[in-house]
């Protein structure tokens, strides 16, 4: 068998899940593989009394994960909101893997997602040959999850057309799925629940109806809280990506990464790191993922056209491009930032000059 590019969470961390299940003596909600406490530990990492170590899957605020797990335990559906690049899908996958041991019951939300992918479809050959029957029915991942008492995942919920979203309402409130063609219904087995993710930057795409919204508990995944955390995430990813893309040249200096992360954080938060000066925020997201791409493209520039070492000049173009998404407003914001903050800062003159040139 050819080597798989990426294994499912429950395959990749099978040993950790097993160790946790062994150590877990707390009460489990019906059909859960682990207790809520163990699920939270699986995501946040920790040491087991038996000596095993659980690696943290989510680095950041403990509260967020606790609310998410508690929500699933109260059989309410969970909606993970956040700007792109805040590990929503990652958290959803690991939650499903830890709770049901299965993260594959997935509906990918797109503008073209049809009701069949949320409810059920038909095997038309069979339908024509035998007429409507359970055998001719093609269940959706959600229907599967209902029958087996597992976690179903919906990615990008807000991209799904409103009328398809509405198909979820009965599933969530009455935990049944009607099959009028057969005059039957599927009743969800205990343990069934839905974890959805959505992007709150483009919430306007297909805004959730208030009836549906009400059936979800919303948890917002924040951007990394501490600068050091974010620098570490960027550094790791840049290293990994560089290896995958086989980029020549030396690894970027930590100081340059720190600088990019600081600029991103300052603009995002609307104030300087020392908290003394307020700033305007641009319309761009400026997520950690974008910081990674700025450093990476700077690195490629340095390797192919520069001196091989990442300098302010290599970063300037990428930085400006990442910040200025709206040519009028963002430009004002960026220039203000350059003039009032970057210019004054000790040792940042090179960056100031490089950005002015762009």
């Amino acid at each position, binding site marked *: 068998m050819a080597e798989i590019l990426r294994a499912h969470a429950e395959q990749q961390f099978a040993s950790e899940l097993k160790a946790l299940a062994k150590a877990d003596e707390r009460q489990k909600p019906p059909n859960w593989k682990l207790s*809520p*406490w163990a699920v*939270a530990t699986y995501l946040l990492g920790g040491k087991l009394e038996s000596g095993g170590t659980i690696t943290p899957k989510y680095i950041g605020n403990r*509260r967020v994960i*606790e*609310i998410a*797990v*508690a*929500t699933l*335990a*109260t059989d*309410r559906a969970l*909606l993970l*909101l956040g700007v792109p690049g805040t590990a929503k899908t990652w958290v959803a996958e690991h939650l499903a893997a830890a709770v049901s041991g299965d993260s594959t019951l997935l509906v990918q939300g797109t503008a073209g997602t049809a009701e069949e992918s949320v409810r059920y479809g038909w095997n038309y050959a069979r339908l024509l040959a035998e007429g409507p029957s359970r055998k001719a029915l093609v269940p959706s991942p959600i229907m599967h999850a209902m029958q087996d008492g597992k976690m179903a995942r919906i990615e990008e919920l807000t991209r799904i057309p409103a009328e398809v979203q509405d198909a979820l309402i009965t599933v969530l409130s009455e935990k049944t799925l009607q099959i009028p063609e057969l005059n039957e219904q599927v009743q969800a087995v205990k343990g069934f629940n839905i974890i959805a993710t959505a992007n*709150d930057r483009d919430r306007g795409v297909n805004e959730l109806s*208030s009836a549906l*919204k*009400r059936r979800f*508990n*919303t*948890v*917002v995944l924040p951007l990394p809280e501490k600068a050091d955390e974010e620098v570490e995430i960027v550094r790791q990813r840049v290293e990994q990506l560089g290896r995958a893309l086989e980029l020549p040249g030396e690894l970027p200096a930590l100081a340059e990464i720190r600088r990019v992360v600081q600029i991103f954080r300052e603009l995002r938060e*609307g*104030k300087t790191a020392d908290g003394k*000066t*307020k*700033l*305007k925020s641009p319309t761009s997201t400026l997520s950690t993922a974008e910081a990674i791409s700025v450093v990476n493209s700077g690195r490629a520039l340095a390797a192919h056209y520069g001196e091989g070492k990442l300098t302010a000049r290599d970063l300037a173009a990428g930085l400006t491009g990442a910040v200025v998404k709206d040519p*009028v407003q963002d430009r*004002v914001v960026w*220039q*203000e930032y350059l*003039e*009032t903050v970057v210019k004054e800062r000790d040792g940042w003159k090179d960056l100031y000059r490089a950005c002015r040139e762009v």
Partner: protein
Amino acid sequence: MGAAAPHIFGIRHHGPGSARSLRRALEELKPDCLLVEGPSDAEEVLELILHEQMKPPVALLGYVPDAPRQAAYYPFALFSPEWQALRYGLERKISLRFMDLPFAVQLAMDEERRKEEAKAAQTAEGVREKGGEACSVEALDKTAEPHPRQDPLRWLAEAAGYADGERWWEHMVEERRESGELFGAIREALSALRKELPPLEDDKERHREEVREACMRGAIREAQREGFKRIAVVCGAWHAPVLDLEGHAAKDDAALLNGLPTAKVKTTWIPWTYGRLSFSSGYGAGIESPGWYEHLWIHEAQIAEHWLTRVARLLRGEDLNASSAQTIEAVRLADALASLRERPLPGLPEMNEAIQAIFCFGSALPLRLIHEKLIVGEVLGAVPDSTPIVPLQQDLEREQKRLRLPAKASQEVVEFDLRKETDLDRSRLLHRLNLLGVPWGETQRARSKGTFRESWRLQWKPEFAVALIDAARWGNTVREASSARAVDRAANALDLPTLTRLIECVFLCDLPEAAENLMTRLQAVSAVASDVVHLMDALPALADVLRYGNVRQTDAQMVTYVVDGLVARICIGLPVACGSLNDDTAAEMYARIERTHGSITLLEKDEHKTMWKGTLLKLSVLPNLHGLIAGRAVRLLFDSSVMPSEESARRLSLALSVNADPVPAAAWIDGFLRGSGQILIHDERLLQVLDAWVTGLAPDAFIGVLPLVRRTFSTFPSPERRSMGDRLKRGAKPQSLKSEEKTSEDFDVARGEAVLPLVRQLLGLGER
């Protein structure tokens, strides 16, 4: 001795749980003497507690009548254990006493300490900012890292895995219902905690604590001597272990209490707010969530249900979606969270998280509303009418006497000459009172010209007395209170114009401390203000202050910093803000550009000038810019010699070319020349430019532009027009441009200096 051992109840200040168990314990014990931690010289106003107009939150205020800035507050809420103990004592008519150091000693010690600190600071680093201005409350407010003694029970609760001391107490008491034993257990826990913690590093603080505890023990001994059988002692849990009389000799305590300084003090009640309760104050711990605690006090059971229902109702009132179904889900989630965290009951953090996930769809904004309205709560207490007068009123009366400005019920108009010290002080007093919401005086338009005259209409109304009592929570002197009020208003001001007006007001009131704070705020708000117009409106006032104002050195630095930021932002944002203006807004923008230009010229900073010139240049070439602005930009550049005469002339003829649309062209020449009649007469260069342009026009073109030029020229008064005509009749001097340059080169310094003494005399600058 044979005296009855006292029953000591260590409580948590402002803890509803403690209050409830204390009340229960007192009812069981039925004491005949009740000692409460509080200033022993405040007993005269205790009777007022039972008055029907008395509504907590209120504070017991002790102050030195001659210097009300020296003051200490003991705030009480309905759910404060001390308040409940006092009410119990008064209702049962048993002997009720305060046992802590009297206000007289506390304030005298504060003052001594402050003096020493001021002296130390002076020798250490010259003149320090604060000096005599910091009142004791402020000083106590500033303790950054709360010492465990302020809220020792929180430490115990945290050790037991609770987020909030109250919920821990609630749990311990509600589950067990054996309050008597509980107080014993707390005393034991606290004596362990006191042993573990290092002693206070500050000698003075430690001494003070020893003195206070000695004083409390003294009061207990006194009560025993008088033969009371069941003495109940209510004090902060921190003190509970050391109020045991064994192990502390009466002699040692007496020695500690000997020779303490005293001051003459007055005591009264003042209304307090929950907002102020959340500061720490003279009483030790401040609490973060008075509204939540009140809720815990009122509801004994089903806390989460009641709380979340209140939240839902509040959100509904604000037109946010909050259904009963959501309330049910929120209660369930809060419970689930608590059990996930292995806590027996959901606390405030669990409530907030459940609210955010269910009511607010993940957004944290509504939570701020909940924090303000429910968790802190906007409650203002009330005190009976018969309460002694507050220090702010006394300070006002003193000021009125000093400035000979008596309060009269009839209307009168007074004029102040601000060059006189007394009149200036009067004006400041009235401005400050206005800031405090006591509109005693109303400014009138002064009849004579000149900025040093101010006219006021005065009328004292009886309701001002109430307003003053209300304002008393801001401070004890008019100056201090208005300063605090200004700072508070600044904190709530969201947009730049409000803040700018406030700053002007603060300068009129002469409140440097508030000004400093306002500048910081202005800096923050201006950074996010997207409207360049507001930034431009804010600049002139600040520039004036910087140039003429008598601000202190530190403030000037701060103002400079803010002004630098403002100028930079204006320069960057102006071209965008000038896009697509109609005639009215262009006229407003014109005036703003003029004012900004004036301020920047006034400030005389090269950095600003260069930036501003760059912006004007940018403006002058901006396509589709309103003619008025474009014309003015060219003119300003011409005036400051950035743009050479030839270039200005070229722009002029470009804008007024025959093919140009007449309306924008008229606006352009209007912008270029508006209000410059006098200047045209005296400025050779400008006249040259115009003259050269007019004479260079082809006859047909001249007829074409004539109406446009006439339109502008007709705005000049006729004598000006006549003298302009005279000048032109005498003939233009083509070489004048060059001759001007020459004069600057051939300038005879010695001859110039010869007139300086006379000029000095004329300006009244005196000989130097």
